[in-house]
């Protein structure tokens, strides 16, 4: 436990000292802020009066913002995770770490929790936009809670998925591209299920594709304020699976030792 905590603390410190990490956070927040103001301005222009209208606007703005963040994760997650393991391999420090009395999973978890913490920081910053909405009316608590919980889990799973590649290659750029591709596959598998449907694929296969999809478990449910246990379970299981694979891959470094 002491080992996991040590790795976590070092990695968190690295994130909060990294100009690149701040640049990513700033870019994301700026992008979301622009979209957010656009949504609000548009709705205000169309609906000049009415309390109910204002509330709907607030909800729309939040949902739109979270949707944007979720979509952008295919870029954000790989950028945040590409360095995590690849750099240790490249610099040779992995040889030091792997000859310390520390389990591979403790090392991987320490790294993962650190990057998830930085993501949580970015997510927390978006709450500033929510506060701005307070002037227009209080947004729906369900949407706020389920939406943010979902966004948090969504971030975790995309980070874990892209981290797998950082364990596999010591080239950060390659890790980033493969990470982005992996997330897109999970993002689009909903759409793939639609395409596959009625084209000779069994119902089981299309259902499976749909169940695998990020969109089916976030954008269509939690983001709309619908909290379902199965969605939370999906995120947790997929995250654990990705971390397990990462941990095994780090272990195989011993066989591939360069």
């Amino acid at each position, binding site marked *: 436990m002491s080992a996991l905590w040590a790795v976590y603390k070092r990695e968190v410190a690295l994130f909060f000292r990294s100009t690149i990490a701040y640049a990513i956070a700033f870019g994301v927040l700026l992008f979301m802020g622009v979209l957010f103001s656009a949504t609000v301005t548009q709705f205000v222009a169309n609906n000049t009066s009415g309390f109910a209208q204002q509330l709907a606007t607030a909800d729309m703005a939040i949902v739109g913002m979270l949707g944007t963040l979720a979509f952008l994760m295919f870029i954000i997650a790989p950028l945040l995770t590409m360095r995590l393991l690849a750099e240790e391999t490249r610099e040779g420090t992995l040889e030091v770490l792997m000859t310390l*009395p520390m389990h591979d999973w403790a090392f991987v978890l320490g790294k993962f929790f650190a990057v998830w913490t930085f993501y949580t920081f970015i997510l927390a910053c978006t709450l500033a936009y929510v506060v701005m909405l307070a002037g227009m009316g209080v947004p729906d608590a369900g949407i706020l809670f389920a939406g943010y919980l979902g966004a948090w889990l969504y971030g975790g799973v995309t980070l874990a998925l892209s981290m797998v590649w950082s364990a596999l290659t010591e080239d950060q750029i390659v890790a980033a591209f493969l990470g982005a591709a992996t997330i897109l596959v999970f993002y689009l598998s909903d759409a793939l299920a639609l395409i596959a449907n009625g084209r000779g694929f069994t119902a089981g296969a299309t259902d499976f594709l749909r169940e695998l999809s990020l969109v089916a478990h976030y954008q269509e449910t939690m983001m709309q304020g619908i909290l379902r246990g199965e969605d939370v379970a999906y995120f947790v299981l997929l995250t654990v699976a990705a971390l397990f694979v990462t941990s095994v891959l780090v272990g195989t470094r011993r066989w591939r030792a360069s």
Partner: protein
Amino acid sequence: MITVDHLTKRYGDVAAVRDISFTAENGQVTGFLGPNGAGKTTTMRVLTGFTPPTSGRALVGGFDVFEQSMNVRRVVGYLPENVPLYRDLTPYEYLMYLGEIRGLRERKARAQAVLARVGLSARSNSRIRTLSKGMKQRVGLAAALLHDPQVLILDEPTIGLDPLQVLELRQLVAELGREHTVLFSTHILSEAEQVCDKIVIINGGQIIAQGTPQALRDQLARGGRVVVRVAGDLEAARAVLAALPAVQEAVLDRDSVVVTPADSSADLRPDAAQALMAQGFGLLEVRSLAVNLEDIFIELTRREVGAQKEEVA
């Protein structure tokens, strides 16, 4: 204590280390000597639990490197070959980080103590990226010493150091050898000779000789060449020596004759002295040519490479 028992490590088709066996005792410095690509680093990576053996066994501090890897990692201090470090940290921060991963108590005191021991106290708060190569090497050594390990495995610790630092480091290694089991690799024979209680010579993935420096010298250099000095005509003396049946070759070398025996295990000195005295030469000196382990090492490793080439052909 390190026990290596018929250890083999393959990378794909390449056997980096083939069926090697040796031990390193407590309270001794064991030198692991071999040319580039001999398999030193590979062996050390197996011993530190970084990479598993293909076959055979190795015990470090009584623990099996594969079955009881965590225990092995607890008792070993390891300095990897090119000294990987976190360049953004200071030596002190780096040691505190490793100490926390190891779950050490009294980390601060330990970190300060080992930094003092390697002579880095003054730079303990400079970023590692600003340190010189020799200082980085010492940070790596401090990291290996941090938890006061029973076994120290140092992969070429003196490479890239200036002569003074090399001397200091050898001294430190010799000191450490009194309390710990030290295995350290080098391709400089004189270094192994100076520091080690025992030398294991490896080449092409196989051990070709092992023993104390003295034993190696005796074993490998038996019946080497003999140097003869006489009062009188040197060329005539050379002719007398060259005519002896046991002599392969006798050549002039400034004021003496160097005699090479046909059978390298024979001692030429009695015969040579007798023959010269019988011919009326005044003997000034008959001695074995000082055996230089370096020569033997070079010859041995060359011979092995030659033998391997023949095998392949």
